[in-house]
């Protein structure tokens, strides 16, 4: 088969799975939690969503949730206009509130922040929402399923892990799909109807969970929720095909859609897997005591093909990138990139309210405004008998004042080339941990990138988690040439993207300045130096708070010149220790914050 034909076949398989997944979701939207759908915003995704919508209709509506949906629009809040009109408190329902099942469609899920999805994950867990805002308190039903539209391109652009964890199915749609005559919608509807009643009176399937648990173990999936989701998906799949208990194909289907995207390792070859079999703990003795029958051998063979199905569905680059393991993702800003400064007066800790106009983007402090208006009501009504229940004049307006606290991120760019690499990396690593220990009090973050050989690499995406830093920094490679230009460029890119997210980055560059690899990754000392100087110029234009720490035994003129070009401070630290580096970095970050 040619490569193109192979790709097409693979795409078709993924599309078929996606269509079946839509039917499964339509069958039990609450039980499955929902799905994350990784794909560009194109025709294929539109087609899939409209299929899902048709299958869910008419009982379950799809409800779009925009990226900037605030806490208030999710859980609800005070309905200002109606409150003012009626004079009694009117609480507005949020998007989550629903007595009957609905499916929320989150657009650009990869851009949601960890905190923004919490009301959603809570509703997925408990089918209940909680409103504690604006003087109102309400517990409400929230029967929701979620479709998270994931438009991320890079490996680290993913929806928040807390959300992905709860969405059983993870789809990757193919880029294009050949038009095909699908089953008519009526046929599928009839199937769904039958399946629903079948699902209710399904037989016991005692060994299903155990089979799935073994499979999850083989694929290195630890999450219990994934296991639960896989069981539900397998049962729905069986019910769709008029089976009372899931069979081989249902387990394979669940393995492809639930397990494969979460796999952290490839299953062992079948021979090895069978050898392992007796070691795995059996739930109880009596079952273990049965002699291996022909039946169980047959089961072993069945399991093999399920494993093969899961293996085939694991995305090619997943294991290299380790995307299945929970890992740092690029932290999306809570709002779009534009206007970090303008936002400044609208976030952070509210430190009170002042008289003022709610124009120019300031947020009205309703309670304060009403409080200010309250004592005047009797007088105003006497003067203006035709007025509504509450008379509010411009004088009463109070707007919120916030204490701005923009987060800071210290980027360490470490030259991991040559003989000094190990020492420099070890000390940089120590400095990262020291800084994290100190700066998590202030909630600042740290990132680490290293350059060596022919390229640069982000080793630790911006994080404030010591746990995560430890894991990432456990083993760092070192040695090879010095692609300094690439290192600087990557640091500059990272700093720029952090700035777009409203962050204040600062950079600590650890190097001896002796570049010998060009931007293109070729060994050419003269060109490498020219490239480095160009990159340093770019750094200067960013006006980034930067310090160049020269770690070579004798301070080098090259490093100093480069620092000058980049508009950076130059600090020679021949025997740089973790403490000294952390101190320098702390000073730079403090400078950036000002």
């Amino acid at each position, binding site marked *: 088969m040619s490569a193109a034909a192979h790709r097409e076949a693979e795409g078709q398989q993924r599309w078929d799975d996606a269509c079946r997944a839509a039917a499964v979701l339509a069958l039990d939207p609450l039980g499955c939690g929902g799905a994350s759908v990784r794909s560009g915003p194109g025709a294929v995704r539109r087609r899939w969503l409209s299929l899902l919508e048709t299958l869910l209709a008419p009982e379950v509506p799809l409800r779009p949730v925009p990226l900037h949906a605030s806490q208030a629009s999710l859980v609800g809040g*005070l309905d200002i206009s109606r409150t003012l009109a009626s004079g009694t408190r009117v609480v507005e329902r949020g998007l989550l509130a629903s007595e009957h099942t609905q499916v929320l469609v989150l657009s650009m899920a990869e851009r949601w922040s960890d905190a923004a999805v919490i009301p959603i994950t809570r509703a997925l867990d408990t089918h209940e929402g909680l409103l504690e805002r604006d003087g109102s308190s309400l517990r409400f039903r929230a029967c929701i399923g979620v479709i998270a539209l994931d438009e991320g391109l890079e490996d680290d652009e993913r929806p928040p892990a807390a959300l992905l964890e709860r969405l059983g199915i993870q789809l990757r749609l193919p880029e294009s799909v050949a038009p095909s005559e699908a089953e008519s919608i009526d046929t599928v509807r009839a199937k769904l109807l039958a399946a629903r009643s079948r699902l209710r009176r399904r037989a016991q399937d005692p060994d299903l969970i155990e089979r799935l648990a073994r499979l999850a173990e083989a694929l290195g999936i630890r999450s219990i929720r994934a296991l639960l989701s896989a069981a539900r998906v397998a049962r729905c799949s069986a019910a769709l095909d008029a089976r009372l208990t899931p069979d081989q194909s249902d387990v394979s289907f669940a393995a492809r859609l639930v397990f494969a995207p979460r796999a952290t390792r490839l299953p062992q070859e079948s021979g090895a897997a069978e050898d392992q079999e007796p070691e795995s703990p059996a739930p109880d003795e009596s079952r273990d005591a049965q002699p291996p029958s022909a039946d169980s051998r047959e089961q072993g063979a069945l399991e093999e093909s399920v494993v093969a199905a899961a293996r085939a569905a694991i995305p090619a680059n997943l294991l290299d990138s380790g995307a299945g393991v929970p890992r740092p993702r690029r932290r999306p800003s809570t709002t779009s990139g534009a206007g970090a400064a303008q936002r400044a007066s609208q976030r952070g800790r509210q430190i009170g309210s002042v008289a003022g106009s709610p124009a120019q983007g300031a947020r009205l402090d309703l*309670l304060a405004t009403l409080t200010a208006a309250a004592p005047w009501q009797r007088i105003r009504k006497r003067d203006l008998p035709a007025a509504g*229940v509450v008379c509010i004049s411009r004088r009463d307006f109070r707007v919120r004042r916030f204490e701005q606290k923009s987060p800071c991120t210290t980027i360490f760019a470490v030259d991991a080339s040559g003989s000094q690499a190990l020492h420099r990396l070890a000390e940089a690593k120590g400095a990262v941990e020291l800084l994290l220990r100190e700066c998590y009090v202030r909630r600042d973050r740290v990132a680490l990138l290293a350059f060596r050989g022919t390229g640069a690499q982000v080793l630790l995406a911006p994080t404030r988690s010591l746990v995560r830093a430890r894991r990432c920094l456990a083993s760092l490679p070192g040695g090879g040439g010095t692609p300094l230009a690439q290192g600087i460029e990557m640091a500059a890119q990272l700093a720029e993207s952090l700035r777009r997210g409203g962050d204040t980055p600062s950079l600590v560059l650890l190097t001896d300045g002796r570049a010998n690899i060009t931007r293109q990754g070729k060994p050419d000392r003269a060109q490498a130096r020219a490239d480095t100087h160009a990159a340093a110029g770019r750094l200067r234009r960013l006006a980034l708070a930067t310090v160049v720490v020269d770690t070579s035994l004798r301070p080098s003129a090259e490093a100093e010149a480069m620092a000058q070009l980049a508009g950076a401070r130059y600090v020679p630290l021949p025997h740089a220790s973790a403490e000294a580096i952390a101190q320098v970095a702390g000073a730079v970050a403090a400078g950036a914050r000002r």
Partner: protein
Amino acid sequence: MAFPFSAIVGQDESRRALLVSAVDPGVGGVLLFGDRGTGKSTAVRALAQLLPPMPAILACRYQCDPERTDLQCEDCRRRPHPKAGLVPVPVVDLPLGATEDRVVGAIDLERALLEGKKVFEPGLLARANRGFLYVDEVNLLEDHLVDLLLDVAASGENIVERDGLSVRHPARFILVGSGNPEEGELRPQLLDRFGLSVEIRTPEELAVRVEVVRRRDEFDRHPEAFRQKWAKQDARVRTQLVAARKRLPTVGTPESTLRCVSELCMRLGTDGLRGELTLVRAARAYCAWQGDATCGPEHIRAMAAPALRHRLRRDPLDESASTTRIERALQEHFAAAAA
């Protein structure tokens, strides 16, 4: 409807920590930190429906204790013959998006509008008085709310000075937090406020994993029947809890136990005295829970890790986890004591 407490598979340490804090609220709160999908919230919500009701002044908005006049709010002290009754112990959920006015309380908007009167409307801190305040994803809580919680948790009193109001009321609650360290660390000040800290890991053994899924599955299909099935066990836990509370004041704490705790803390180099005090209280509460008369080494052993693991000084170059260090110290200590 919440999952029954006794049906939770494994998670011995977190269950023990929650029960110990229910036996003796003085232990301080519980922090459940660890992997996703390990039933952290489930355990807390399960505990809520297990707690025996408590006597309270019925007219009081802060469910003041009729017996403890010293801890009552101003209104209750002024009431001549307050009517008391049994009320459920509050387990109050503080959602991440909560606004400050709902947490501390604020002016009652309706009455301000309709009557032009300034009346205080109590917030979550008031509702949590004498009960539990639960914060899921506590590490993502906004800083100003964290500061606020710390302040109130330390003083046991909520002082409101806002919207022209000036109110103070008792707010003694057991702070229970849960979260996932992948999403960020907890500030040390907040960490220290939790009496006990539990590290939760996803179970690795196949049999346990299968059992977890089976029970969850059964609960989701037939919640009512499942609860019936476990009602007896839950009732037993409740009875044991009541007995433990009664026994707690009589639990003996010999000199040797106190010395053992001090030595252990010294060996580990814990910060401050809070670790020692918490470990002694927790061990006593655990002793009462077990129905034992004297607090001894086995109770210290059981509570040392949750009471101390978040108070060890962090050494960035020591990779070994706090739990391992405590295990090691325990072993060394008891080996030395035996010799």
